[in-house]
């Protein structure tokens, strides 16, 4: 099941300068009861975004009309904790196509790549620059260029390169997923399985 292709994304961004944002914050467990992948975006950052009576919390960035865009910029160790892919789904469903941080938790990073949301790891210094730029001008734009593996602050032209393995990059550029790849090598897997003892 292919996902959206990712090539060059030029967008404003939403800053979330908090460290160790865990997947329980991205989507709390009580919203994991669906048996289909839909409407998870409504509960993205549920308990930071809404009061218990359902009214929006004015001080949370998703409720701040000055900020919007397809890029979410999070603090160090973003996506730690639970392996719930629902966290990546919620980010996608809300409208983000790219998450930027100085450091991602492993499982979350895999989950985003598997659904076509690009995780971009920048240096701590560049992350600070992005936050400063967004603070100064919420309408400032970032460009994430996957073919060149660069992220650029368009206002100043400052840029950094980011890492992604060649296989995943090819998948993202073309909207291919791993399952198609694995389906195409089933006989090789069958032979491999036969020689496993346990």
């Amino acid at each position: 099941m292919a996902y959206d292709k990712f090539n060059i994304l030029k967008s404003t961004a939403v800053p979330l300068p908090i460290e160790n944002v865990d997947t329980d914050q991205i989507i709390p467990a009580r919203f994991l009861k669906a048996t289909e992948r839909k409407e998870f975006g409504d509960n993205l950052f549920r308990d930071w975004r809404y009061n218990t009576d359902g009214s929006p919390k004015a001080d949370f960035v998703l409720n701040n009309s000055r900020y919007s865009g397809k890029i979410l910029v999070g603090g160090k160790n973003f996506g730690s904790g639970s392996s719930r892919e629902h966290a990546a789904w919620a980010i996608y469903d809300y409208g983000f196509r790219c998450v930027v941080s100085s450091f991602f938790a492993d499982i979350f990073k895999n989950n985003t790549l598997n659904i076509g949301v690009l995780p971009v790891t920048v240096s701590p210094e560049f992350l600070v620059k992005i936050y400063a730029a967004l603070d100064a001008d919420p309408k400032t734009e970032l460009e994430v260029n996957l073919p060149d593996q660069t992220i650029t602050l368009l206002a100043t032209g400052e840029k950094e390169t980011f890492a992604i393995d060649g296989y995943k990059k090819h998948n993202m550029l073309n909207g291919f997923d791993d399952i198609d790849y694995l389906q195409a090598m089933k006989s090789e897997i069958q032979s491999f399985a036969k020689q496993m003892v346990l």
Partner: protein
Amino acid sequence: MSNTPKTLFDKVWDAHVVRSIQDGPDVFFIDRHFIHEVTSPVAFLGLKNRGVKVMFPEKTFATADHNTPTINQHLPVEDPLSANQLKALEENAAAHGISHWGLGNPKNGIVHVVGPENGITLPGMTVVCGDSHTSTHGAFGAIAFGIGTSEVEMVLSSQCIMQAKAKKMRINVNGKLGKGVTSKDVALFIISQISASGATGYFVEYAGEVFENMSMEGRMTVCNLSIESGARGGMIAPDETTFAYLKGKEKAPKGDAWDTALEYWKTLKTDEGAQFDKELNYNADEIEPQITYGTNPGLGTGISQNIPFASTVKDGEASYKKSLAYMGFAEGEKLIGKKVDYVFLGSCTNGRIEDFRAFASIVKGRKKADNITAWLVPGSHVVEQQIKDEGILDIITAAGFQLRQPGCSACLAMNDDKIPAGKYAVSTSNRNFEGRQGPGSRTLLASPFVAAAAAVTGMVTDPRDLL
């Protein structure tokens, strides 16, 4: 043939690589796949949409645990969404010929408790589940880690996932643990030293006397918490303790197959001179009973210590202060004597028989404090039965506690077991994240001894004073 010394992790990893993709991940073969009701339904939908069958149904095992009630399990599940997920698991398992231990099945329990106790998890295997605490199974010398739902679909459809090999870290803890210091304390201590992201990108091998002397239950607790330092997983080389635990377990090999397996399992250790990307050393006498005070598992300390000042912590000050504000704690405060409202004994971290024995050893002859609501939740029906058979139920009942039925319960509070907003819970589970145990709940992670000490005194108490 290369004679390069290999780590335990290398040996198991290399034996499972079907194909190495150039400038990409390995196609990695999975021996055992556990599924539960929360992270599998969308994967089965994916199979349906592609018109694909489960490739090896005998290698996948389903159990219901995350979203199940822990009282009145004989009655229909009240929450329609939860009931729907449980039904989906049952139907998907039946449609694809997968073993299913649903609610009410005597084998039912938390996935990371029932896998090992039935001998499904074995040394040298690769084990995955759509749950980050799959790292638990590394206690057997398996490579075990949590995966997302897309990867669950990969395993169902091809018995493989795409994984880049992690870097290797070894954590050695030598010496003898002091009175009242458990495997949980060792794990929380390590996380407090390296932080909640200190092992991200690594697979950890735990080595040294402390782990060699640990029971399988203790090793499972340690490996379970690997993910809380960011590690993909953790593992411990199998030894006589492992083999004795597995011998005779229902799904463990028998007869000649056991002998063959045993011969292989004995080779599963890190060779002399094998290289790690990082190696850390600690001594057991540095470790006292631990407790967390913040909103990630790295924010913990010895129970006799004070809450650190923001200026001394490694993470950013703003995030640290936000964390303490959520907890209602101040820098420099003592932890001993802090009032507690709830005690939770259970979860895939500390829901095994040894944990209930530890809890009972402290509450025996004492009474539950009046201000405490306690939820004692066994990890499985097998553990529940052991609690009864060993007389532990009588001890805890006499002390004013009740035993609930198995499940993940208040660890993630998907069911009705939610700590109310603003209340403090000493929990033997694995995460103290904001709202983890219910919206607004405040969690202090600790061992079963510390939980028991809080349960009978109503406050944070050093368990060594009661042992």
